C-alpha cells in the first residue's frame, strides 16, 4: 500500500513536486524533504511563528498546514526572499538595525513582516506590534525588530516611489 501522496506546488518561484504522508506538515516537508531549513520549528503548534511562510499571499504557520494542502499553491519561504544575491530591504533592515541576536526567530519575523508590508506599506508602530504578536523572540525585547520593520517600510516606499518616477 502506498501511504504517500504526490503534491505539486510552486515554491520560491520554482515548480516543485514532492511525495508526502498525509500526517506530514508543510514545515516538515520543507525542512526534511526539500532541505529548506530556513523555516524553523520552535513549537510545532502555531504559537511562535518561527516557521512562517507566505502561501498564496497569506502568512501561515507552516507547522499548521498539512503538506498535502500545498497542492497547487504558491509558497514563499525565507530562502526565496533575497534575489540575485541582493538582500530584500527587510533583511537588510534587520541586519543594519541589529534586530537579531541568536537569529532563530529571524526568518519567521522577516516573512511575517513581508506579509504585512506587501499589503500595508505604511503601518504604524502599533500595527506592526499587533501584526508581529504571532512571532516570539526571546532575545531582543522586540524594540529593534519593530524599528527594523518600520525602517524597511520607509525604505520600500522610497524605492517604490523612485521606481515609479522612472517608469
Amino acid at each position, binding site marked *: 500500500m502506498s501511504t504517500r501522496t504526490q503534491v505539486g506546488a510552486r515554491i520560491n518561484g520554482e515548480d516543485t513536486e514532492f511525495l508526502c*504522508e498525509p*500526517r506530514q506538515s508543510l514545515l516538515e516537508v520543507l*525542512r*526534511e524533504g526539500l*532541505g*529548506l*531549513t*530556513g*523555516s*524553523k*520549528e*520552535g*513549537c*510545532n*503548534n502555531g*504559537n*511562535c511563528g*518561527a516557521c512562517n511562510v507566505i502561501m498564496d499571499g497569506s502568512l501561515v504557520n507552516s507547522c499548521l498546514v498539512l503538506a498535502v494542502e500545498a497542492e497547487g499553491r504558491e509558497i514563499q*519561504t*525565507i*530562502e526565496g*526572499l*533575497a534575489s540575485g544575491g541582493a*538582500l530584500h530591504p527587510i*533583511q*537588510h533592515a*534587520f*541586519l*543594519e*538595525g*541589529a534586530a*537579531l*541576536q*541568536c*537569529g*532563530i*526567530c*529571524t*526568518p519567521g519575523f*522577516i516573512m511575517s513582516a513581508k506579509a504585512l508590508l506587501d499589503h500595508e506599506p505604511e503601518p504604524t508602530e502599533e500595527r*506592526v*506590534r*499587533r501584526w*508581529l*504578536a*504571532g*512571532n*516570539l*523572540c*526571546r*532575545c*531582543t*525585547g*522586540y*524594540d*529593534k*525588530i*519593530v*524599528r527594523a520593520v518600520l525602517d524597511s517600510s520607509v525604505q520600500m516606499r522610497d524605492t517604490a516611489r523612485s521606481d515609479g518616477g522612472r517608469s
Partner: protein
Amino acid sequence: MTTEHKAPYRVIGTRPLRPDGADKVTGKAQFGADIRLSGMLYGRIKRSPHAHARIKRVDVSRAAALPGVHAVVTAADLPGAEDRVAELGEGSVNMRELSGNVLAHDKVLYRGHAIAAVAAVDAHVAGQAVDLIEVEYELLPPVLDARDAMRPEAPLLDKNRRTRSMAGPADGPSNVAAHYQFISGDPEEGFAEADVVVEREFATRMVHQGYIEPHAATASWSSDGQLTVWTCTQGAFAVRDQCVAILDIPVSKIRVIPTEIGGGFGGKTIVYLEPVAALLAKRTGRPVKLQMDRSEVFEATGPTSGVNARVRMGATREGRIVAADVELIYEAGAYPGSPVMAACMTALAPYEIANTKVDGYDVVVNKPKVAAYRAPGAPAAAFAVEQVVDELAEKLDIDPLRFRLANTSREGTRGPGGRPFPRIGHEECLEAALSSPHYNTPLEGPSRGRGVATGFWFNGGMRSSVTVIVNADGSVSLVEGSTDIGGSRAALAMQLAETLGVGIDDVRPSVADTDAVGYNDVTGGSRVTFATGIAVHEAGMEVRRQMTERAAAHWHVPASDITYEDGRLTCTSDAQKSATFREMALQVLRTGEPLVATGSIVGRGVGAAFSTQIADVEVDPETGKVQILRYTVVQDVGTAIHPAYVEGQMQGGAVQGIGWALNEEYCYDDQGRMANASFLDYRMPTALDVPMIDTIIVEVPNPRHPFGVRGVGEVPIVPPLAAIANAVYRATGVRQTQLPMSPRRILETTLGLS
C-alpha cells in the same frame, strides 16, 4: 551616555554589521535541528508521565519489533558515571546525577524524566515506538513545594542525601541538599540601631529560559571509534566534558561541533540529548538526530527555581540601611544545584550594609532539574530585597533612587564573598537614572505608577582560547571557541581589529569545534566579550610582535627600530621604511613561514555589573492587567564594544524580566503535572505586550580589561521583577509579594480576595 572619558578607539564603539548576520537573515545559518547526514536516523525519547515513581520494569520488546525501528536504549546502556562535581561557569553539575537526568536509573524524579530512547527511520516511527515501550512504575508521593520538601516527614527524592552546610553533612537524610549562611557584622545590633524596620515574605514560581530553538543533537561514530556530536550548545567543550563522564570514553575520542544556537540564556549548558544520541548512533552504526518538541523543553530541561524569600531590613531616620536579614529557599528541581548561593551573594550586593545575615537553602523537589538562567538566582532575590528597600524609602519619605544612592556600594565596599569591590559603576547608574528624561517626566493619570529597582551581577571570567591567522592577502582569521549567541563574533572581531589597527572587514571570525581551538568555557556568565576578548587581545599583541620581527628582517633593521601604531609599521631610523599591516603581510607571507598566534587565558580581573531600571505601569482596575507604559534600562557595561548589541542585551534582558514579572510561571497540579507546557499557555511577552525599551549605557571602564569591558548579558534581567512590582504598588497601593503579577493575582490582591 558616557560618564567617563572614553579612549579614542577606531573600531570599538562603532556599529558594524555582524559577520554572521547575512546567513541569519537569509535562512542559511545552520542551527541544531538543521543538521542532516547521510543515512541519518531520527530519535525520540520515552518520558515519565509521573512526577515520582520507582521504575520496576522497562519492556522495549514491542518497540524494538516495530518496522523501521533500529535501536532502543535505556539507562542500562550507560556506564556508571563518577560522583564528581564539575563547574560549568553558570552553575555546577554532579556528573552521576547528570547521567541519571539523561536517562533515569532506578527512579523517575519528575514528569518528563527520560527513561528510554528509540532510533528509527523517521521521527513519526520513532514516536510510535516510544508509545510501545512499556514501563511498570511503583508510584511514590511527589513533593512539589520547597517548604513542603523541607519538612521532616516529606517524601525523600534520594534517601542517601544529607544536607551539606559549614557544619558538615547532617546525620539524617533530607531533601535539603545544602544550607549556606553568610554573616557580616552583628545583625541584631544593627536592627537595634534601626528606626524603621520592614519585613516581608515573597514567593516566585519556576520559570523557563524560553529560548525559541528546542534542544537538538546529532551523533555519529566513525569506523575507528571516533564520536562526533553536532549540537546547539552554549559550550562545545562542556558538552565534550559531560559526554566523557557520562559515556566513559576518553576526551580524545570525542569531537563536538557547535552549530548556531537559537538562544540559551544558561539553559544550554548541560547535556540532555547528546549522550543518548551517541548511544543510539553507536548501537545502529548510523548517525542519529534527536530533537525535542516544545513540551519536552518545558517539562524536561532546566527552568530556574521557584523561590520563597523572607527579607527583613532596618534603616535609620537619616536614611542609612543598618541591618539586613535574608532567608532564601530555592527549588533545585530533581537534583541539587539551584543557584541559591549566587542569590545569597547578590541579594545585598548593591548596598553597603554593616550588619547582614543571609541564609540560603538548596531544596530538591519533584520537578525538572533547574539549569542556569541569566544571572542565575539574582532576579528572585532582587524581587524581594528591592521591594523592601522601596518600602524603607517610602517610610522614610526619601526618593527611592536617592535612598539607594545614599546606601550604594562603591569601590572599597565589602562585596560578595567578603572582598572589597574594585572600581564599580552602581553610583553612576543611579545618578544616570536620576537625571534621565524618563525619571524627570512626571507620570500622571489614575492607576498609574512608577517603580525603580537596581541589580547586581558578578560577571564571569574563566578560560578562553583563540587562534589568529594572518592570511597572505593581509586579512585575518579569528578562530574562537565561544559559541556566538547574540553577536559575540562581532564584539571579538572588533577587539582584534582594534588591537591590530586594521579595519573590521579585514577580520573574519569563526566559531570552531573542540578539535580546532584551545579549551573554552561556556558562553555564559556574561564572560565572552570580556574573557575571550582578553584572549583576542593577547593573540593580537602576539601577531603585532611577530609582524614587527618580520618587518625588521624584511627591512634589515633591528626590531627595536620599528614602531607599530594604528596598524602601521614604521622604521624609526629610516622614515622611508613604512608599511601598513596589509602591505607588510603581503610582503612577508609570500615567502616566510605562516603567521599564527594564539591567546589562551583565564579571565582575571572580572568587572562587576550593575543595572538600574525605571518602569511606568498602568493597572486596569477592572481586569487586573498591567500595561508597561514606559521602560528605561540603565546599565554600567564598562565599555560598549558594539553599542547596538549592548542595547539589545539590555532590552532583551529587561523584557525577559517583564515576562517573569507579569505572566510566566510553571503551573502544576497536585500530582506534579505541568498544566501549561506550551507557548500558548506559558505566556512569554510578545511585541504587543511591551513598549520600546529605552537604554542608557553607562561606561565605567573595567581597569583590568584591555578595553575596559565588564560584560553585559545578565544583569539587565535582575531589576525588572522588583521595578514592576514597585510600580504596581505605586499604581494600586498594594505590595505584590508573589509572581507572576498576572491579572488574576492583581485582582485578588487589590480587591482583597486572596
